[in-house]
């Protein structure tokens, strides 16, 4: 796989390859081929899903706003493949990727995004609130950091029920400056909860580079405040992501959590629907694109002889088809019935 040899990303001054200091077992190599292929498929699904969303944006069908995950796919897919189907996750505003990686129904997602009544939230949530209890996904969130407390609670449930479930709370780099991050990780630490905070450090919170919103070199350094385990990894390398999360999921299942993982990655698009991107150069974006996680993983699979060029193409085409079908389904779906407006406020 192509390594980020010369990357001087916005936050770290050393090379991504220097991140190898934290050694975990290579469990990826033991995976069945199907799963390795499945991972590529999901990455493509996310990529094409988001590109389809861009089309909906252009057509004016995305009301309000939404946040695309393009460029960050290795994180969601790598992490989700390292945990079990019935392990809970909590996502954030940039949540489509987590949702898809957790095997949500693409059709219901797309329907929600364009405000249809059969979408995941019956059109009540939209992009920033898609949740899917069936795939153990506790939802995106409109409040930066808002899901962190919920993630602590889900992992507390595991502990109280004495099962060996683990919870991943996906969080953004900039969200770690919010008080709830501190309270949540501290509480999880005091109670040894099986919780992984997986921080997708895509270098920016909206327009603000992380180096301007905090003075630390690595977000994972914040582990010191809670005496928990933590590490910084290359979040554009799905093999690293998979191996690291596999390792720490085990740590958590043994009662030695929580854990703070920082994954260096990059969002290739603007922050949200409207973003003139004055805060970064085209050059920076282009440089990061060279380390596109899908390109890297695809090449890696081919180079290591796991799949052929041809298979790769087929996987990609199938993903495109899946997305087209989801989009068609969404467009053909009905808008919510007005009688639904005031339902679902209270449970019986």
């Amino acid at each position, binding site marked *: 796989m192509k390594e980020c040899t010369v990357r001087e990303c916005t936050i770290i001054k050393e090379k991504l390859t220097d991140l190898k200091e934290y050694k975990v077992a290579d469990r990826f190599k033991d995976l069945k081929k199907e799963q390795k292929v499945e991972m590529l498929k999901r990455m493509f699904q996310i990529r094409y899903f988001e590109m389809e969303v861009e089309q909906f944006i252009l057509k004016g069908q995305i009301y309000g706003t939404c946040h695309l995950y393009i460029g960050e796919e290795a994180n969601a897919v790598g992490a989700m493949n390292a945990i079990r189907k019935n392990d809970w996750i909590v996502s954030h505003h940039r949540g489509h990727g987590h949702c898809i990686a957790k095997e949500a129904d693409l059709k219901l997602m797309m329907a929600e995004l364009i405000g249809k009544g059969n979408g995941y939230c019956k059109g009540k949530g939209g992009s920033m609130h898609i949740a899917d209890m069936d795939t153990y996904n506790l939802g995106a969130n409109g409040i930066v950091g808002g899901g962190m407390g919920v993630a602590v609670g889900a992992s*507390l449930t595991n502990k109280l029920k004495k099962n060996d479930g683990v919870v991943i709370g996906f969080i953004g780099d900039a969200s770690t400056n919010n008080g709830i991050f501190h309270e949540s990780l501290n509480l999880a630490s005091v109670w040894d909860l099986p919780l992984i905070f997986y921080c997708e450090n895509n270098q920016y919170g909206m327009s603000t580079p992380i180096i301007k919103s905090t003075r630390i070199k690595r977000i994972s350094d914040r582990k010191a405040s809670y005496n928990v385990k933590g590490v910084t990894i290359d979040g554009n390398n799905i093999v690293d992501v998979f191996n690291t999360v596999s390792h720490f999921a085990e740590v958590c299942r043994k009662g030695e959590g929580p854990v703070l993982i920082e994954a260096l990655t990059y969002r290739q698009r603007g922050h949200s629907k409207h973003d003139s991107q004055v805060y970064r150069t085209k050059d920076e974006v282009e440089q990061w694109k060279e380390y596109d996680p899908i390109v890297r993983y695809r090449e890696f699979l081919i180079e290591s002889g796991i799949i052929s060029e041809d298979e790769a193409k087929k996987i990609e085409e199938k993903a495109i088809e899946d997305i087209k079908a989801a989009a068609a389904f969404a467009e053909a779906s009905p808008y919510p019935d007005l009688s639904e407006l005031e339902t679902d406020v209270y449970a019986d």
Partner: protein
Amino acid sequence: MSELTYLEAIRDGIREVMKEDERVFLIGEDIGLYGGSFGLTNGLFAEFGAERVRDTPISEAAIIGASAGAAVTGMRPILEIMFSDFTACGMDQLLNQAAKIRYMFGGKAKVPMVLRTASGGGAGFGPHHSQSWEAIFAHIPGLKVVMPSCPYDAKGLLISAVRDNNPVIFLEHKVLYKNKKYAQEVPEGIYTIPLGKAEVKRQGKDLSIVASSYMVQKSLEAAEELSKQGIDCEVVDLRTIRPLDIDTVMASVEKTGKLLCVEEACSFGSFMGEVITQVIEKGFDYLDAPPIRIAGKNCPVPYSYILEQEMIPNVDRIKDGILKVLGKN
């Protein structure tokens, strides 16, 4: 059946639901060995152990968030926020997360949690420990808000709140906690009082007083005193302010034609504004005098006894209000 204070009755209710349902657990600051700031959870730590009676760091946001997360994944937390003013530190987790999860998820999740907290003034705790914030909580769709006025109700409502499948804000009045004057016979074991049902605590024909929590007690006192002058007040205890049992209020107002609302919160933007507004919308013609609100003054709750007593409605102010509604002063 034994005579319990308000605090003991709530503790009793907690113990009952913990025995009946192992998904119920407690979470809060100093609620374990210490028994909570008011001693309400005394003994529960010894009885149920550290797994189910969980002391936390001073992290209101995480406490509320963790409760919501535990609730949505199958548990039934009862969390204690020591003083209701401290909910401000976890307001996002409460108003934006817990309250909205069900709706945002399109009805596919439920969040059964009870946030117990000491509300109200009258105990000299000053501006940060004495506020009455029911108007804030009740304004948010998704939350239920309970304000018991006496031990019997408190236990029955607590049990209902824990069995309810929604986030419930359970506002306990700190002045009622240990006051022997308001102790009551409280049945042992489980019994429930439905959320959303008001109760007429005193029958009367001249005027309807609507109140909740401690103000019910003060209103009953005022009613009693004025009964000696032949004034016959009805006292409606809302018990739950969201859902609001406007039917019981309307029935009373229809009978008496007069309405006095009594509350401890600062009057400006208060919850009783909602009650009056609904009564007016639904029963403008029943009323033969303008309804009046007796409420807290529009300032923070001051520390000094003499000022605090002036800030919070007392029996005399309520009596004045009654006379005013009746056109007698």
